[in-house]
């Protein structure tokens, strides 16, 4: 029999996280800092809105773009929170930000187009680029620059084939953010090479100390920017699979065309739930998000301090809900560290290499866990580090 699997499907690497998950699930009593989703449950009002929409019989397809009130609310929300002006017809509701990433890349990639991907970063950019026929070009960000992107790094990675750059901030897994002064620095170089910016702002609501700044809010950048976001992290709605892409009309049309053939529309009940999340949020100034942010912020400070105490040098993250300590001082790679930690202390963390080669000597710990869980976890890390050092 022929081998039916495509070369591309063969080429894309299995997720380093997934590989680790299979091991974790076989160890009884293991606790984990491996999860990339909030430990909060979707607020009741949002769940109730979905139930009501089903009771009312809203069970059909919606328009391909998504229901109008939701897109109007997103437009208002983006304006209120991040000073962005997108018309409702420039917003496409997607099946999570994940589909947003996929549909964007498919809409822009010609065969062989290069897309710059800052690393460490979320695991699906590179495979999605490959599936779209593009070539991912990793741009290694290091702790020395606070895992931020610098103009020099972009300059080094750009070629004639470069078409776009992904801007994954606030960042999973490093927790780095790009404050305005740093965006100012990379802006000219992006214009110089006429790159499209794919700004993945799924963690935009989770920054600590300073408010998230979107590059799409810069004069003239709206037209060279695709903004991807969603409801998973800010509203604890990961399982609902609901996200959106905001882009200038021509690009948005191209994405819509792909989306309507492949997906048809995002799940209807999820759209109503998301719409409620925003309408309700406008009423009380998004108190739900404030509460979650405050809680994450406490855990973040606790984790940074406890990991440093345990002997792992830990950069202070300013966004998302991850810390990304270096394990170099132990003489182990992140993979070795994570595997031994799991075996000896029954604690799962994710090896940094899952997020790109430059994460080799790091591990990712999520602090989307209760303080009890985190306290126990850092105790185990401390014990383990002491033993191997």
């Amino acid at each position, binding site marked *: 029999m022929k081998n039916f699997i495509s070369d591309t499907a063969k080429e894309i690497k299995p997720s380093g996280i997934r590989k680790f998950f299979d091991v*974790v699930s076989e160890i009884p009593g293991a606790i984990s800092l*491996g999860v990339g989703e909030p430990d909060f449950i979707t607020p009741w009002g949002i769940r109730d809105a979905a139930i009501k929409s089903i009771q009312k019989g809203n069970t059909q397809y919606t328009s391909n773009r998504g229901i109008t009130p939701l897109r109007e609310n997103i437009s208002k929300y983006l304006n209120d929170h991040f000073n962005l002006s997108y018309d409702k017809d420039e917003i496409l509701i997607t099946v999570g930000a994940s589909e947003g990433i996929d549909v964007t890349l498919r809409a822009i990639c010609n065969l062989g187009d290069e897309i710059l991907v800052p690393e460490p970063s979320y695991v699906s950019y590179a495979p999605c680029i490959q599936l779209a026929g593009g070539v991912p070009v990793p741009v290694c960000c290091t702790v020395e620059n606070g895992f931020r992107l610098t103009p020099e790094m972009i300059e080094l990675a750009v070629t004639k084939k470069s078409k776009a750059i992904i801007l994954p901030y606030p960042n999973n897994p490093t927790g780095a953010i790009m404050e305005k002064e740093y965006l100012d620095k990379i802006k000219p170089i992006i214009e110089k090479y006429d790159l499209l910016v794919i700004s993945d702002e799924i963690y935009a609501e989770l920054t600590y100390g300073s408010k998230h700044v979107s590059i799409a809010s810069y004069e003239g950048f709206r037209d060279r920017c695709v903004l991807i976001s969603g409801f998973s992290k800010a509203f604890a709605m990961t399982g609902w699979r609901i996200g959106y892409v905001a882009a200038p009309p021509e690009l948005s049309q191209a994405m819509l065309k792909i989306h309507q053939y492949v997906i048809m529309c995002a799940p209807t009940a999820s759209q109503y739930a998301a719409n409620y999340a925003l309408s309700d949020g406008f009423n009380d100034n998004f108190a739900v998000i404030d509460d979650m942010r405050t809680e994450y912020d*406490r855990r973040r400070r*606790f984790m940074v301090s406890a990991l440093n105490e345990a002997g792992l040098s830990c950069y202070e993250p300013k966004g998302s809900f991850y810390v990304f300590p270096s394990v170099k001082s132990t003489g182990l790679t992140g993979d070795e560290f994570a595997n031994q930690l799991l075996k000896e202390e029954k604690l799962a963390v994710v090896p940094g290499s899952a997020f790109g080669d430059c994460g080799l000597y790091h591990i990712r710990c999520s602090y989307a866990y209760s303080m009890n869980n985190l306290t126990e976890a850092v105790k185990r890390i401390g014990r383990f580090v002491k033993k191997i050092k």
Partner: protein
Amino acid sequence: MEKLNKDIIKIISEDCRYSTSKIAVMLGENEETISTAIEQMENDGIIVKYAAIIDEEKISTGSVQALIEVKVAPQKNKGFDSIADEIYELPEVKTLYLMSGGFDLAVFVEGKTLRDVARFVSERLSTLDSVLSTATHFILKKYKIEGAVTKSEDSSKRLAVHP
């Protein structure tokens, strides 16, 4: 100051075993500030007591708890306070609230046996002058205490590792 107190209360209400240094880290303050604030709150009676929440069902003390609704005749110039003073002095009384609605005082008592509680009601509580009537409800099972669910929940619904 008020905000700091609120933040501290939120943390220690969740778990009062956090050291002042941990609390300081979590709130981005220095340890001195935190311990002063806690001490002040203790002195001011804002923090009344530090205690653990126990699910008695799991340690089979065999003790019995009841909620007693008490109707009383408020006294001139003293309202409900003086009768409340009398009631909370009784060692069986664990918790005492003044309530709005159909009765006046909610008295939570604990005794070794059902008979103990019955005797407490008939001999000590009902016999107080201002007490007009009582209704005793025995507590059968505690599902949630002070925000904590007693049943050990199935392990998290989340996957162990995920992007």
